[in-house]
């Protein structure tokens, strides 16, 4: 038996066979020419490859459940059979004697480059063309299609890391668990796993050396992967299944064993999410991501349209708190009417609240829409701006929100500058919400998308915990200066880690917001500790020399975690 250890990012224990994601298609060598094939035969082969890819995509579009997914598949199918694309590739085959995969690669790249040169919304379509290019080249080379493989029996999917586009082809009914050799706790793989509730381990070095078909045991809480699972592993899986009730049932009351209330809220991004969250017992919404209203749009949606969308979400939370985050776009989440995709360093660029300087008006109209949606429903609406670095930004945002008629303005604390000046910021706004994913990447100066930096990109880093403490202390200072009650919440993934949730409460955080699946496990663990214990554990964590030590020290003290398989 071999044991590999990575970072567990979503709890769960399963046993299954490994199936790996196909390698990304690599560019056929420049000047790769026909060998023993007649050009006419090569052109015919290209055409039948295109027809096969197109037919497969069309078939999948017909069986796709979601309309958005079906539309994407349909438009990809259309591009795969594009006459001009195939004609240009055929010309390179007959004229220059290029091999069909090279000819197709060049012809498709030409179109992708043209789209990029057009900029804005069109530039985003370049990725679609590159996806088609990868499919056609795979088909011609007899390689597996890009994307999640299809199997009849559920399996453990392994990859170096998953990209956002892979999520469209991932069927949660067919995948038992995700294991990646790269990626970090904030990678797309981790976020996807938590959303789907799939057990997942990231940064599991060595998993790439295991052959497809290897039977493994995966523990998404401890980050362990064991080959040749036996009775012991089967019992662990059974224990996990038995304790399901304690992990999945949330009675809608976040509370410590001594009665201290810690409201548990949900992160939501669509009206459907909001219904799921309400059904899961969420005590409100701690983070409403409004990007769903804007993404994939060429133009800013009208105020009326926004009101309709926000109202659809607020209706699920009548009488409860809903924290609406204003648009968080940037070069990494581009919107043609708002962002510049050419920034060299998107994480440090014009994003979040900063876009109000570069393109004024969009934020004011969004605030107007949020205020109108609040009037139309009974939800208690709070509003906050992302990517705040200075007190004056917080003050400006508060003024804009109040001018729109919104009574409770706040800001996200994602930058170290906001954390250390929280006392000043909280003179102007009513609350702060810690976005621990970004706060970690900025505090540790480590790109959250880079698997090789996963160790740095860990919210257990004592430096990140200290940033959180600064923020809480800032709130207390503002309160002592007469500012009134100042709520400090956490809405990053850290809140969904039951052990870290205890530490956050111990540091003085008032509310935790997470994906709905995190609510029950977090509630179960919080209920096992009192405030004094939580404080002691926070102190213990913050004094450790590393993230691993901090996590290990706290986990050892929380025996309830092992009981619940968390």
């Amino acid at each position, binding site marked *: 038996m071999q044991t590999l250890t990575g970072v567990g990012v979503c709890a769960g224990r399963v046993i299954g066979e490994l199936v790996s994601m196909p390698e990304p298609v690599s560019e056929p060598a420049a000047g790769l020419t026909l060998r023993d094939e007649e050009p006419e035969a090569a052109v015919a082969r290209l055409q039948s490859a295109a027809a096969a890819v197109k037919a497969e995509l069309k078939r999948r579009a017909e069986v796709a459940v979601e309309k958005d997914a079906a539309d994407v598949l*349909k*438009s990809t199918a*259309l*591009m795969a059979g*594009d*006459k*001009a*694309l195939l*004609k240009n590739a055929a010309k390179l085959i007959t004229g220059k004697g290029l091999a069909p995969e090279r000819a197709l690669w060049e012809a498709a790249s030409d*179109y992708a480059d*043209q*789209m990029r040169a*057009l900029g804005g*919304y*069109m530039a985003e*379509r370049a990725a679609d*063309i590159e996806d088609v290019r990868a499919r056609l080249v795979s088909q011609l080379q007899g390689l597996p299609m890009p994307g999640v493989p299809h199997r009849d029996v559920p399996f453990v999917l392994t990859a170096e890391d998953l990209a956002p586009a892979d999520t469209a082809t991932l069927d949660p009914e067919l995948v038992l668990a995700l294991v990646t050799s790269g990626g970090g706790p904030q990678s797309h793989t981790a976020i996807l796993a938590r959303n789907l509730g799939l057990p997942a381990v990231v940064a599991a070095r060595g998993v790439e050396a295991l052959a497809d078909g290897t039977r493994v045991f995966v523990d998404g809480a401890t980050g362990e992967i064991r080959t040749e699972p036996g009775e012991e592993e089967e019992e662990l899986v059974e224990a996990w299944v038995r304790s399901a009730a304690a992990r999945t049932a949330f009675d809608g009351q976040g509370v410590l064993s001594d009665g201290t209330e810690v409201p548990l809220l949900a992160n939501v991004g669509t009206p459907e999410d909001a219904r799921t969250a309400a059904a899961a017992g969420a005590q409100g919404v701690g983070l409403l991501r409004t990007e769903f209203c804007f993404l994939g749009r*060429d*133009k800013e949606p009208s105020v009326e349209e926004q009101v309709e969308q926000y109202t659809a979400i607020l209706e699920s939370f009548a009488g409860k708190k809903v924290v609406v985050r204003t648009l968080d776009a940037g070069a990494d989440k581009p919107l043609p009417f708002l962002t510049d995709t050419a920034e060299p360093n998107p994480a440090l660029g014009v994003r979040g609240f900063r876009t109000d300087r570069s393109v004024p008006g969009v934020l004011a109209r969004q605030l107007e829409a949020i205020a109108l949606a609040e009037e139309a429903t009974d939800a208690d609406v709070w509003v906050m701006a992302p990517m705040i670095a200075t007190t004056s930004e917080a003050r400006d945002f508060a003024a804009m929100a109040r001018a729109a008629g919104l009574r409770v303005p706040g800001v996200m604390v994602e930058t170290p500058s906001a954390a250390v000046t929280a006392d000043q910021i909280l003179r102007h706004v009513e609350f702060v919400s810690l976005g621990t994913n970004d706060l970690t990447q900025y505090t540790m100066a480590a790109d959250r998308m880079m698997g090789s930096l996963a160790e740095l990109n860990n919210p257990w880093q004592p430096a990140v915990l200290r940033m959180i403490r600064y923020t809480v202390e800032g709130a207390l200072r503002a309160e002592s200066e007469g500012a009134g009650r100042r709520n400090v919440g956490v809405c990053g993934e850290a809140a969904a880690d039951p052990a870290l949730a205890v530490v956050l409460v111990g540091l003085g955080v008032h509310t935790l917001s997470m994906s709905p699946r995190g609510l029950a496990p977090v509630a179960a663990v919080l209920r096992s500790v009192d405030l004094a214990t939580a404080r002691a554990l926070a102190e213990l964590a913050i004094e450790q020399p590393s993230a691993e030590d901090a996590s290990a020290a706290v986990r050892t003290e929380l025996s309830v975690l092992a009981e619940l398989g968390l």
Partner: protein
Amino acid sequence: MAERTATIASSVGLHARPAAIFAEAAGEYDLEITIAAEGEPEDEAMDASSVLSLMSLGAGQGDKVVLRAEGAGADDALDHLVQILETDHDAE
């Protein structure tokens, strides 16, 4: 040779959904139908049934394009295609 000039009505221009609708319609005729930006030479015109060619035109709302086709039924085909271009598919 039949020829028509059409003004793009779609508020987002001739790409994505509007381009797909148009390319599919143009592909249904057994004719070589071409499209070019107004003022472009005829030999630089592109295949109207290619969604990639249409998108690479980069035609925005209000831009004029020229459709050309030859053969039986060309006039009817172009009349129908002009109608598609002059409809705002994003307003549906």
